[in-house]
């Protein structure tokens, strides 16, 4: 009859577990779900990565195109991230144009790229004022089981590390650009931002990497993004129950340790692909 | 299509009739209803036609306008289809009701006319990459009497046959900018060659046999129908199954054969009417909508 109790009184059911400092799926409060990453699975994209965080599955595909740079930033290319939450990944999203949660996630990813300076936009410039790269980063959630922000940032980082751009040159006389598809060179990744999300339970308890159910029952969420120099790229707390400065500090320290784990995982995976 | 609800007994009656190759209105399985085709019924279009097939009434207008060729086909003009189901066909088409059916018909027309052979698109091109003729084909559904696709395809073919595109000359002046010069004689225009334009034949499966040109009642008893676009030479350019049911493979082969045979006969009859109207020239007494 346990399932009956769970659907009738979900909050009470969770409190019973949180009292013993564990969760229904057996994890501690500070423990992440199993994280796997698979790079380069989509051949039609210039760079792609699929990240699984427990059941949450996110795929990021990067398509590179060329365009005239903006007038005010003549030597800068563009990075255009978009998060898509289709009705396929969970019944809570309806099909059609992106809803509020998808747009908020897109804005969060754009802020993380801007704040952490993963790629210097100047590196994307081919010919000053004439031609520059546009990296369309499309992040699609295939299976929504909570904590979509961590998975998206990880997938974006892995996909950008996997991008191979063809060399494009503009020969002066004709003014036309020539593309050499054979000779490809990777992007220069300057920083490695990693996101860590927490859910706030009953205004006090902080649990890391919440599942979809835990997110529904939580009274607030906090996402902290750090880079390798332990600088804060983003502290994103969209309302919800208030937190003291000390609790925020606990989140940041946990985020820093999480950064090391993820950096180790991504280095291992990129090394395994490098030889071919 | 606008559905009419029939009781089980009526459906049984129609199905048994079709088994014996005898339909409710006395036709055989492969006979068309009497069709009236009339061209040049709307004045301010480049070409227009109206087809009345039994109770189905379609009006098609073709407008030729100057446009820029598409990126991937710089040396060809192109066709744009728009199907409007007017609300006086059935109350169900009120507001957005008819939109879903309209887009479905438009998609089918795009598929039928997508193969290069149907209309000579290269003749529509004025100068590559910059100017070409774009034919906006507007289909208006005035009344639904079943078998919409056949009636529409006949009307489109007649309208294209009737289309007159003014002759245009391109003048190159010194600094290379092109200038379009229109001929002053209003009758000096080029006509489209519609021989390869296909006509759609819809074969509706009723019981174990299939019929052509199904009325609304027959469509209600048919679970699946096959839609075939046949050119005057008998080649198939499009094939599509519509309806909730499924077809067994053998019956598809038979349907294709029947479709080809019926399609060629249809083309011959249509071409005869069009040539007749063409020969009468301007003295033809137009019946229009009052007939």
């Amino acid at each position, binding site marked *: *009859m346990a*399932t*009956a*109790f769970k*659907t*009738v*009184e979900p909050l009470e059911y969770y409190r019973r577990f949180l009292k013993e400092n564990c969760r229904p799926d057996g994890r501690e409060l500070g423990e992440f779900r199993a994280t796997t990453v698979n790079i380069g699975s989509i051949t039609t994209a210039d760079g792609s990565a699929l990240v699984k965080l427990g059941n949450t599955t996110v795929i990021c595909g990067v398509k590179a195109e060329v365009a005239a740079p903006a007038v005010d930033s003549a030597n800068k290319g563009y990075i255009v991230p978009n998060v898509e939450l289709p009705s396929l990944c969970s*019944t809570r999203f309806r099909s059609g144009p992106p809803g509020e949660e998808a747009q908020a996630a897109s804005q969060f990813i754009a802020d993380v790229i801007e704040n952490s300076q993963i790629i210097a936009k100047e590196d994307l410039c081919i010919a000053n004022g004439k031609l520059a790269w546009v990296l369309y980063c499309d992040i699609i959630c295939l299976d929504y089981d909570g904590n979509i922000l961590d998975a998206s940032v990880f997938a974006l980082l892995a996909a950008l590390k996997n991008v191979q751009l063809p060399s494009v040159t503009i020969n002066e006389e004709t003014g036309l650009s020539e593309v050499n598809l054979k000779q490809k060179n990777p992007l220069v990744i300057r920083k490695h931002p990693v996101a860590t999300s927490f859910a706030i339970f009953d205004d006090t308890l902080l649990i890391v990497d919440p599942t979809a159910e835990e997110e529904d029952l939580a009274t607030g969420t906090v996402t902290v993004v750090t880079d390798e120099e332990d600088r804060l790229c983003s502290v994103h707390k969209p309302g919800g129950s208030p937190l003291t400065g000390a609790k925020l500090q606990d989140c940041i320290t946990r985020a820093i340790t999480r950064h090391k784990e993820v950096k180790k995982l991504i280095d291992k995976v990129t090394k395994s692909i490098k030889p071919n | 299509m606008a559905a009419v609800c029939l009781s089980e007994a009526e459906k049984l009656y129609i199905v048994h009739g079709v088994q014996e190759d005898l339909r409710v209105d006395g036709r055989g399985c492969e006979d068309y209803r009497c069709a009236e085709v009339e061209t040049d019924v709307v004045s301010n279009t480049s070409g227009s036609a109206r087809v009345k097939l039994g109770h189905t009434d379609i009006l098609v207008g073709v407008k030729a306008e100057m446009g820029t060729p598409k990126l991937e086909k710089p040396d060809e003009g192109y066709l744009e289809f728009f199907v409007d189901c007017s609300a006086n066909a059935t109350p169900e088409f009120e507001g957005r009701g008819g939109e879903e059916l309209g887009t479905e018909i438009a998609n089918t027309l795009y598929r039928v006319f997508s193969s290069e052979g149907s209309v000579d698109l290269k003749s529509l091109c004025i100068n590559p990459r910059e100017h070409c003729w774009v034919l906006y084909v507007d289909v208006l559904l005035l009344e639904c009497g079943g078998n919409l696709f056949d009636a529409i395809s006949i009307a489109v073919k007649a309208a294209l046959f009737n289309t007159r595109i003014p002759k245009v000359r391109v003048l190159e002046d010194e600094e290379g900018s092109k200038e379009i010069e229109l001929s002053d004689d209003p009758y000096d225009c080029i006509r489209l060659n519609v021989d390869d334009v296909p006509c759609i034949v819809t074969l509706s499966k009723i019981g174990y046999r299939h019929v052509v040109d199904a009325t609304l009642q027959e469509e209600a008893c048919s679970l699946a129908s096959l839609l075939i676009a046949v050119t005057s030479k008998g080649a198939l350019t499009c094939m599509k199954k519509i309806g909730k049911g499924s077809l067994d493979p053998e019956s598809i082969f038979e349907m294709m054969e029947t479709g080809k045979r019926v399609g060629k006969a249809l083309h011959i009859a249509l071409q005869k009417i069009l040539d007749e109207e063409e020969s009468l020239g301007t003295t033809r007494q137009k019946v229009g909508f009052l007939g």
Partner: protein
Amino acid sequence: MAAARRYCVPGERLCSAAEAAAGSGTYTRRGAVCAALAGCLRRGGGAGGVPQVAVLRDAEAQLLPDVGAVVTCRVCSINSRFAKVHILYVGSTPLRSAFRGTIRREDIRATEKDKVEVYKSFRPGDIVLAKVISLGDAQSNYLLSTAENELGVVVARSEAGVQMVPISWCEMQCPQTHTKDFRKVARVQPQFLQT
């Protein structure tokens, strides 16, 4: 039983219609019984000894509330004429997605139907046991009734948010603030909720 569990796929021919009757999860076509579900095959004694072939899916079978089933639902809104509920369970199997149901005023109690007050029977948030009396027509959703003693409110929370204890068939009391509230209480109190 777990020896040779034969699994089958929709469309698969199980046996000829003469051999066995078509049980749940199967259909007959051209004299053969074919599987309609992807699940494990069960040959069992059907009604009246005729052998029956059925295909069973895993535990939480795909249920639709049908007439006569006892359902567990949560009250979401009430007014003077009916109460709107979300159906969570059919029997003991949870539904994956909530279906909407309605309990009309005259279906709440079997006795003195017209003196029933919806406000004195249900409140939003209560968990109620009810029986499906009709699938409802095109517009309305499922029609439910709580006109038996075993049906009615099972779990109710008081203003203070504490779970209330039933003290009679029509009243419940909050253990903390001792305030009494009117509810149409289900007599058999299934003990699946430890208070």
